[in-house]
């Protein structure tokens, strides 16, 4: 019960913030809610879209969970997502002429994950050995990733016709299996579910996960307990980047089939609020990722009938993060401070030294 109540409260709050946002945009609230519901859950097309949208959100969100739990504030999900897709596109170009389709498919997923992992691990290494905070380096490395992709899709990885700045489309056989040819639902949507289990076991059952959480909560204590803090932080970044890279790769090999400069549609950034709203817990992240996937699918439908579309997703995310993550923390600090002041006033005033 102790755990269920806050989850219910957050769920209710998310729905409420949706209603308020629609109202603030001056929309007809019941009608808009209907459109959103239809677009996401009303039929199999909507359901497929919702699942496909939540896939990168959950995967990259899990990446954030691992990094942030280790005290590494990875803001580079977007770049890692792009590097993952780039790795996939690169290995696809090499393997397609010489290997059978299932092998290529698996190779794409593996190489994409590794590319994302290495890219993020580099930022981790910069912090550990050079003192460059990942908060800064990952933001900047996003731009590096975008430009590397821009160069690749106009150079070595450009499509055979050399018309558009994008890679050659993957043959259908290489793409993830589609359950229903009419919808966009592909077999990649099971990866978030697997990843939730893997991350949960890693964080809460494995020895490496305990070390990671310990160092993330108190790096000095990690050091005093003779843990290799630097290695742990770099490996957390690798996990994080691997999951973001996998997200980018699955969108590439499951949904789009080619890589262009607009491949990452803020999924890597959106993953941060998804993870925060999920309480930096794998299961919470799955739920919040699904919710925002539904909201994306629904608001795409809303956009067909009103001038406002997916913008509301960003508004709701912002409202939700402020009200559930930032505000309670600030309020908590405020309560702590005022009560401390009261105690100080009641007791002996102005104690400066012992």
């Amino acid at each position, binding site marked *: 019960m102790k755990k269920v109540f806050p989850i219910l409260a957050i769920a209710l709050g998310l729905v409420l913030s949706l209603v308020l946002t629609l109202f603030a945009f001056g929309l007809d609230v019941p009608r808009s809610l209907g459109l959103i519901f239809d677009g996401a859950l009303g039929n199999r097309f909507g359901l497929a879209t919702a699942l496909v949208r939540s896939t990168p959100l959950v995967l990259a969100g899990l990446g954030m969970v691992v990094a942030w739990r280790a005290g590494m504030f990875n803001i580079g999900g977007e770049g890692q997502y792009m590097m993952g897709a780039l790795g996939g596109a690169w290995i696809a170009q090499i393997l397609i002429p010489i290997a059978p389709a299932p092998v290529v498919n698996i190779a794409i997923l593996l190489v994409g994950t590794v590319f994302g992992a290495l890219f993020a691990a580099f930022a981790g290494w910069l912090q550990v050995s050079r003192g460059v905070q990942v908060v800064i380096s990952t933001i900047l490395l996003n731009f590096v990733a975008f430009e590397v992709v821009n160069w690749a899709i106009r150079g070595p990885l450009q499509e055979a016709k050399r018309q558009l700045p994008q890679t050659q489309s993957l043959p259908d056989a290489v793409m993830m299996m589609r359950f229903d040819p009419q919808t966009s639902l592909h077999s990649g949507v099971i990866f978030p579910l697997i990843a939730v289990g893997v991350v949960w076991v890693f964080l809460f059952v494995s*020895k490496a996960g305990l070390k990671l959480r*310990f160092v993330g909560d108190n790096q000095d204590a990690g050091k005093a307990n003779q843990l290799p803090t630097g290695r742990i932080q770099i490996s957390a970044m690798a996990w994080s980047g691997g999951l973001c890279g996998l997200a980018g790769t699955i969108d590439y090999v499951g949904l789009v089939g080619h890589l262009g400069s607009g491949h990452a549609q803020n999924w890597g950034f959106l993953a941060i609020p998804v993870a925060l709203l999920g309480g930096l817990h794998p299961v919470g992240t799955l739920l919040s990722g699904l919710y925002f996937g539904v909201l994306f699918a629904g608001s795409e439908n809303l956009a067909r009938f009103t001038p406002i579309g997916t913008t509301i997703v960003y508004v709701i995310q912002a409202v939700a993060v402020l009200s559930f993550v930032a505000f309670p923390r600030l309020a908590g600090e405020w309560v702590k401070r005022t009560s401390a002041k009261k105690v100080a006033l009641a007791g002996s005033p102005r*104690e400066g030294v012992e």
Partner: protein
Amino acid sequence: MVSPPDALVELDEVTKAYGKVLALEQVSARFFRGEIHCVLGENGAGKSTLMGILAGFVIPERGSFMIHGKPAPMGRPESMKQQGFAMVHQHFMLVPNFTVAENLCLTNHGGKGVVLNPKSQTLVAATLAKDLGWKLDLNLLVADLPVGAQQRVEILKALMSNPEILILDEPTAVLSGPEVEDLFDVLRTLKAQGKAIILIAHKLDEVMAIADRVTVLRKGKLVAGALLSETNRDQLAQWMVGEIPPVPELIANQAGEEILRLSGLDVRGDRGELSVKGISLAVKAGEVVGIGGVDGNGQIELAEAVVGIRPSQATLRELPSKIGFIPQDRQGQGLALNLSIRDNLLIGGLEDKSLGSGLFFASQRVKNWATQLIKEYEIKIGSPLDPVASLSGGNQQKIIVSRVLSQNPPLVVAVNPTRGLDIRAAEYVHRRLRMAARQGAGVLLISTDRDELTALSNRILVMHNGELEQIS
């Protein structure tokens, strides 16, 4: 004791309590112009509280505090400055990335209104520095200055307001020998200018060299106040420490082999200064070696070097592969406060194969193990899954002690393992450490608490200025 009528500052029967602990109990002292007055005492004697009262940020519960025969404005440090007080803190209150001149402007910006006028300040500072015989480039960054020079800046900053009373809190703690001599020359110059100088100190040699008058505190009480000429070194030492209690007979442990051997160990502190200077040290199995001394003489650096979390150089280094570490700062270094009690225990059991041999923990065995530890070490908790932050200090310390000792490390390094604990919890930690030694562990106990050292140690060394001295 005859006191001349012109006492500049008078404290009379001052009492200050923190909770139930009496930090100062009916302490009286008088401070005069043209005198260097040393306030002496061990850690926890009440020196810092006394200094806090003088500087205006601690308000005593009882007693009077007079300046020039008038009640002092207590609780307002900023008006103490107008009363002619200035203070040199032990930990420098300087901005490292500002120049010397900019730092000097922090207390007094020199210009009119909101305008900063570093030039006028620089001029004043340069004159002051010249008077004291210092060569100080005011345009250098404070961060680039050696520690001794940083302290000069701190002193200059204090002198900028032309104070009558200058308080220095353990100013020699960070200085080398020649720097101390230099500082003392300056203090004598200031004394000759008629200022009252109050020096918080714990090093007897320095007190003997510089003081005109001493006030000795022990455990919050005034032990003695006297002119230095009326007393001597042995008398001061006895006042400071009291009667030295007899060392209790320890059960003779099996004289084991040496499990720790270090020679010529050099360790650098956080500021790059040499904190441990070529010491040699050996600990045998089954033996508790106590290291005493006043805080900040290199003990922490020594402990961290032995445990291997601070880089160090040594000519000889023989250590066991597994060392149990009980750090001084349990919340800062011992625990991950937001993690559960179970997780905080488990971080000590990473290499315990019985808790899971591969990459994973066996959850049932972990549960039993944690329950067992909690029972065995009498840790009072709600659920093992509660955050460790919810526990009292004593129980938090027991978490650390239990996870370290349950792994039977051949060497245990404990730094002030009972600091801040009540008597029962402290007693318990002592019993466990003794038990560990009886079972064959070597224990290196670093403590500033003399009672703790004598109660536990087979032999005691004292660390002073980065070097070890044998006393028993």
